[in-house]
């Protein structure tokens, strides 16, 4: 009888210890859910300068050539923002600065618009308030698709896991193009992001690390910090209508005086 009781006792202790260990490893995930707006940690002076203090990417010669080629294309004069500054427009003549297209690809990083994260069991979904593709981050254990059968997009294919209090996201399959702070990417380039929330739940720090032996001499890393939107706030819709002539315009100098 005593032996049997001891055996039961040991068994119960083992079970209790296992349950406790499981509860420990299933520790609460970071609370990423909600609306977030990027903040200017460095005091950049203007939107153009937000990444000025990021360490510049160190690229392979081939990737440097790709960046230079892209820069040449981007420098082609387009619209009125490239016009001769010695010939200002007159009153009522609007400066045309876009083609009015409302469909924008977006990207993996936040811009000045808010973004919203929602966490469900199998997926973390990130949607933007500006036009752009959503980011579907699969946390159900699935693998990336075969890139030979994947059409690259501005947001690629993302899988995620929770690790040491952070959401870790791995992305491949991005369209080729520029990366912040002088970087470059191809569909094979791997982006690893770590999403961490401050202890008071109000700040979200996302660390971006780009790796690709054909593009980077060493991993290219930078951080973007965002602040949670206030309680009770709601998502905004960024209305756009390509039929509206104003969609193409920036400044329209007003008539002066009487």
């Amino acid at each position: 009888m005593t032996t049997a009781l001891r055996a039961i006792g040991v068994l119960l202790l083992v079970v209790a210890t296992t349950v406790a260990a499981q509860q420990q490893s299933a520790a609460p995930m970071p609370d990423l859910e909600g609306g977030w707006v990027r903040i200017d940690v460095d005091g950049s002076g203007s939107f153009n300068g937000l990444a000025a203090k990021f360490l510049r990417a160190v690229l392979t010669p081939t990737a440097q050539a790709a960046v230079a080629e892209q820069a040449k294309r981007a420098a082609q004069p387009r619209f009125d923002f490239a016009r001769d500054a010695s010939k200002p427009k007159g009153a009522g003549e609007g400066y045309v600065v876009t083609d009015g297209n409302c469909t924008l690809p977006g990207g993996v990083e936040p811009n000045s618009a808010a973004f919203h994260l929602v966490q469900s069991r199998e997926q973390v979904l990130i949607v933007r308030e500006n036009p752009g593709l959503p980011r579907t981050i699969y946390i159900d254990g699935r693998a990336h698709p075969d890139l030979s059968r994947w059409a690259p997009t501005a947001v690629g294919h993302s899988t995620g896991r929770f690790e040491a209090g952070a959401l870790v996201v791995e992305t491949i399959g991005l369209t080729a193009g520029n990366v912040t702070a002088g970087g470059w990417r191809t569909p094979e380039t791997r982006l690893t992001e770590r999403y961490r929330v401050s202890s008071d739940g109000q700040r979200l720090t996302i660390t971006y690390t780009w790796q690709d032996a054909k593009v980077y001499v060493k991993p290219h890393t930078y951080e973007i910090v965002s602040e949670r939107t206030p309680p009770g706030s709601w998502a905004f819709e960024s209305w756009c209508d390509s039929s509206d002539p104003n969609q193409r315009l920036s400044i329209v100098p007003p008539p002066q005086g009487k």
Partner: protein
Amino acid sequence: MNTRAPLLFGAVVILLAAFAAAPAAHHSFAMFDMDKDVTYKGLVTEYRWSNPHVHITVEIKPEPGVDSATIGIWDVEGGSMNIMGRQGWTRATFKAGDAITLVGHPMRDGSKGISLFYVILPDGKRLYHDVARPKGEGAPPKQ
């Protein structure tokens, strides 16, 4: 060693770059002198809360203390409604007739256009156009 592989990779990269989507979240600011912060004080004659950009028409009259370079009627361009909304703006922030003090970047070609940086409200609070802050005035990250 296969020397053709890097060349082939380079060709593929450049070819892919030709099809890379140009990020166009908003238009270029090249028309504006973004390194110049100018303060303008005047009256709102129109506050247009709409996309793609919020526009404020501001009249600055010649008065004592007014910088003569700022006199005139200006089109002040802000951001989209949702970007400015996240910085505290609403459709009720201004109306015609309101006094306004703003800091912005003038057009390079001298025409009466301004890219808004921020406005200074009567209580001294600033409403920024987007996430950017003046140099040296960034928010420190929390732990």
